[in-house]
């Protein structure tokens, strides 16, 4: 296991006008589980491929453990990669798929057998060793791909959206299993995903990317509670955070309390669960029309329209379906303020 350090990694594809990645720097500590999260096209997979050595960075350096791996061939980096489509060798049996990496590294036969046995037992693949990949279900293939990575006992595990080809139910189950598995083997993991639930539930640390730039690095809670800018604020959390300009707040009739930044213009973000709602009028609360009421059991999501804006609120109240008016206010301590010009966080 080892620490991974990226310094000013940039990548421009030949003939492209804009860089896919610019100035990416962060550190993955030993045994840490780090997610690269961002919308599609943000460069997260390219970054993972650069770490693996499958793409070459235009500039910047990559240090794994003590050694500079910036220009080292993939097979000498001692990393394992789990591909989105698993990329199993179709003409080899499950056992060969798992053990080939070890055999090519000239490891002793008895040790290979022991490691393959331990890994396949851990993943419940021991009954499938003789099969070819095409005779496996999607979930089984995914586990073979994982086994191929685990059995190598590499310095770093790189996973590229490994759950995206599974159905929703299996994905939920596998998410937890993966987390426990990597805890157990004390793996250093870099995990690419576009799914915020995966990133939030599995990671020690999340790196949020957009347009090839890092938007924020932090623990799941830090990112949720203190988003660094409007992009992160709206990207993380479902339903999405409400974003209101100072003007919109005034138009809807919200009385500023004086705790807001004393700026000409700012943008306020407030998460749906940080709106307090009421079915009756209250002193100082804003009145709005309930356009939509979506009960989901524990929580009910309301879409409330007010002059100049529409907001979403999540509440534990059992909202009466025929109630068309709502009164609401914001929990002050949970309001996020951003600069309207740059989008960066102010408070």
């Amino acid at each position: 296991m080892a620490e991974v350090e990226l310094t000013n990694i940039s990548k421009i594809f030949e003939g492209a006008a804009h860089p896919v990645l610019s100035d990416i720097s962060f550190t993955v500590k030993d045994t840490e589980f780090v997610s690269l999260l961002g919308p599609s096209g943000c460069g997260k997979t390219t970054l993972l491929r650069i770490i693996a050595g499958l793409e070459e960075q235009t500039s910047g350096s990559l240090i794994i453990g003590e050694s500079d791996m910036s220009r080292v061939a993939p097979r000498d980096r001692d990393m394992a990669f789990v591909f989105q489509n698993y990329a199993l060798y179709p003409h080899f049996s499950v056992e060969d798929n798992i053990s080939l990496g070890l055999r090519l590294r000239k490891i002793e036969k008895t040790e290979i057998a022991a490691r393959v046995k331990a890994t396949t037992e851990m993943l419940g693949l021991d009954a499938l060793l003789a099969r070819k990949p095409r005779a496996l279900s999607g979930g089984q293939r995914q586990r073979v791909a994982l086994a191929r990575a685990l059995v190598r006992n590499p310095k770093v595990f790189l996973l590229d959206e490994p759950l995206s080809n599974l159905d929703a139910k299996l994905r939920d189950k596998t998410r937890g299993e993966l987390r426990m598995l990597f805890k157990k083997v004390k793996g250093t993991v870099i995990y690419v995903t576009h799914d915020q639930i995966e990133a939030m539930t599995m990671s020690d640390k999340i790196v949020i990317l957009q347009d090839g730039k890092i938007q924020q690095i932090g623990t799941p809670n830090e990112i949720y509670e203190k988003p660094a800018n409007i992009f992160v604020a709206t990207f993380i959390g479902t339903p999405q955070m409400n974003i209101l300009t100072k003007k919109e707040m005034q138009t809807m009739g919200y009385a500023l309390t004086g705790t807001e930044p004393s700026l000409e213009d700012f943008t306020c973000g407030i998460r749906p669960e940080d709106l307090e709602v009421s079915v009756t009028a209250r002193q100082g609360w804003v009145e709005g029309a309930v356009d939509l009421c979506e009960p989901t059991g524990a929580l009910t999501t309301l879409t409330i329209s007010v002059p100049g804006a529409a907001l979403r609120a999540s509440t534990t109240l059992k909202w009466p379906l025929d109630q068309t008016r709502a009164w609401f206010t914001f929990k002050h301590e949970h309001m996020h303020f951003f600069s309207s010009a740059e989008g960066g966080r102010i408070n």
Partner: protein
Amino acid sequence: MATTKSDRRSTAYKTAFYVFMVVSVIITLFPFVWMLSTSFKSPGEIFTKQPTILPQLWTLNGYKNLFAAVNMWLHLCNSVIYAVSITALSVLFNAMAAYAFAKLRFPGREKLFALLLVTMMVPGQVTMLPVFLILKSLGLLNSYAGLVLPGSAAVFAIFMIRQFMMEIPEEILEAARIDGFSEFAIFWRIMLPLCRPIIATLTVFSFIGAWNDFLWPLIIMLREDKYTLPVALASINGQYNTDWGLLMAGAVVVVLPAVLIFLMAQKHYIKGIAAGAVKG
């Protein structure tokens, strides 16, 4: 059970289909059957007024005369050397070139490949003489090397294998690179096995092509002991008369290995053609 109109129609369609297929099979097989039966007939029976499909009197004289007239084992040996070596070399070289064009990144790859395709427009007859002169100045006339080398890479085959290889997901190769395969091991242990259908197809093409080839061995191999089977067979075709029984026996000997190879590779062969059709 009552038959409906559509049932009757499908029965009629099936009948017509089978009649058509049976007629096609007869038309295709008849020359082969005729060749086979003639090779077992006596010279008298070959020219009877009422032709017989099966010999009335079976005789092996055609074969005996064939083996007496020419050194069949020698020419068979020449043919095997020619066909096997050209097949082995061309499949290897074509697959290696195709791998480079399909999966390796190097500057000018597409241009080089286009140039290669352009050479397909030059007919073989045009290059035959210059190639002959080159081989002559290299002192390779009358040698197996001279016979085999010019045909040991074929643009069309490179094209076919490249198209097939392009369908193999890049991630499999990348997984192999991370797993520790060398570039040659990726080609040998991953790409080649995955290309089995197209390789089988081209093996059959190449083997049958070389086995039946007449013109090139004729002009390269000037000495009789270097003749391949088709050339040797043509040489016993006398100036004034033709011994048809002997000639047909010769034709059977020539055709047999080609048919056997085809039957053996048939399963992969058809897969390869179909795959090529969709992916090419």
